[in-house]
């Protein structure tokens, strides 16, 4: 994978609005942004109601994903362009999800909603209706998804990349600072994890930094290219952004996203936790 196959620019997107076989999809946790204005023709996915099982704490399964995409009028051979707010966190999560279920051609809009708005590109409030499809998903590709036992076993052996803010890593904050801080789980990070905040990979307008800059960020942080990598954050969406950088832009192999992330790990009984700015000992 590379930037050419995984990413499109806002210029490209604006020129390809309405192009046959191209579907724009806005992904957010709070879809009120979509309702006040979205890219022309874009359908919406709600991270919380469409992409999470409503009973178990898990993804939607293969048949639920097929029903969702069929309902939104997305076909197996469509080129899907994902974008959203929060610097594309939830769009990157959806990208990872589309890859997990084997969608052929999926890309992120560089800069997401923020750059589109700051550039004063057009947004519309039209209701978008696409004809229903018969979407067929693949079995989930768990080579890109990490589960908790695997994460505990990775301590001191694989690359663990904590992509939360430095204060969350150190245990000084329990959540991103736009959310209240009182949380159920313990503070801190997984021992031996390196701290590479997701935001280091992005410019302030939400676009990704250049490949050379990205390579330097992870090299300087001590990522060992010869080992497998597991990225995590708090609920798995910021780490999807970093997973996208490592696997889809830089072409690393064997990168997994741990979507249980800190809300799961920080609530586990009996696992080691490190506090402070250093990775800590295995």
């Amino acid at each position, binding site marked *: 994978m590379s930037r050419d196959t995984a990413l499109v620019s806002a210029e490209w997107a604006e020129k390809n609005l309405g192009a046959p076989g191209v579907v724009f999809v806005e992904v957010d946790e709070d879809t009120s942004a979509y309702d006040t204005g979205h890219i022309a023709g874009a359908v919406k996915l709600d991270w919380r109601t469409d992409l999470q099982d409503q009973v178990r704490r898990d993804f939607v399964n293969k048949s639920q994903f097929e029903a969702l995409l069929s309902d939104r009028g997305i076909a197996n051979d469509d080129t899907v362009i994902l974008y959203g707010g929060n610097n594309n966190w*939830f769009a990157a999560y959806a990208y990872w999800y589309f890859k997990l279920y084997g969608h052929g051609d999926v890309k992120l809009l560089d800069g997401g909603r923020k750059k589109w708005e700051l550039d004063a590109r057009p947004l519309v409030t039209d209701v978008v209706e696409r004809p229903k499809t018969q979407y067929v998903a693949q079995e989930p590709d768990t080579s890109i998804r990490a589960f908790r036992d695997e994460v505990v076993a990775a301590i001191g052996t694989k690359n663990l990349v904590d992509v939360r803010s430095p204060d969350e890593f150190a245990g000084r904050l329990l959540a991103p*600072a*736009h959310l209240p*801080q009182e949380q159920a789980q313990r503070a801190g990070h997984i021992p031996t994890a390196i701290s590479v905040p997701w935001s280091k990979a992005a410019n*302030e307008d939400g676009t990704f930094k250049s490949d050379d800059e990205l390579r330097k960020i992870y090299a300087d942080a001590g990522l060992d290219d010869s080992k497998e990598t597991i990225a995590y954050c708090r609920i798995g969406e910021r780490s999807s952004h970093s997973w996208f950088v490592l696997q889809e832009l830089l072409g690393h192999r064997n990168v997994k996203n741990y979507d249980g992330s800190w809300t799961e790990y920080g609530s586990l009984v009996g696992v080691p936790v490190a506090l402070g700015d250093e990775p800590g000992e295995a």
Partner: protein
Amino acid sequence: MTATSAASTAAAGCAAPDQAAPLPASLDLEKETVITGRVLSESGEVVPGAYVRLLDSTGEFTAEVVTSPAGQFRFFAAPGSWTLRALSRQGNGDTAVAAARGINEVTVSVAA
């Protein structure tokens, strides 16, 4: 905060909440450090739809929200030195803040 409301907070995702909503009644201002305020343009008008970034004492990104129709933003941080950086179509601007527990009111001015 009760165990029930703490659990519901933990289950919430990371999307930016409504910046104009009142502070939740369950919020404990003895514990929370709230940094809140408005973004203003050069002419003193409120700037809705601005992207406000909370940067830590090393300049590293910590959080980002979009201002409400009245130009408001709000963060839940910790006591210490922070920088607010606003990006908007009317221009960008920075304001430093030394935050203490409770509510910290800050205005960020942007200019082209």
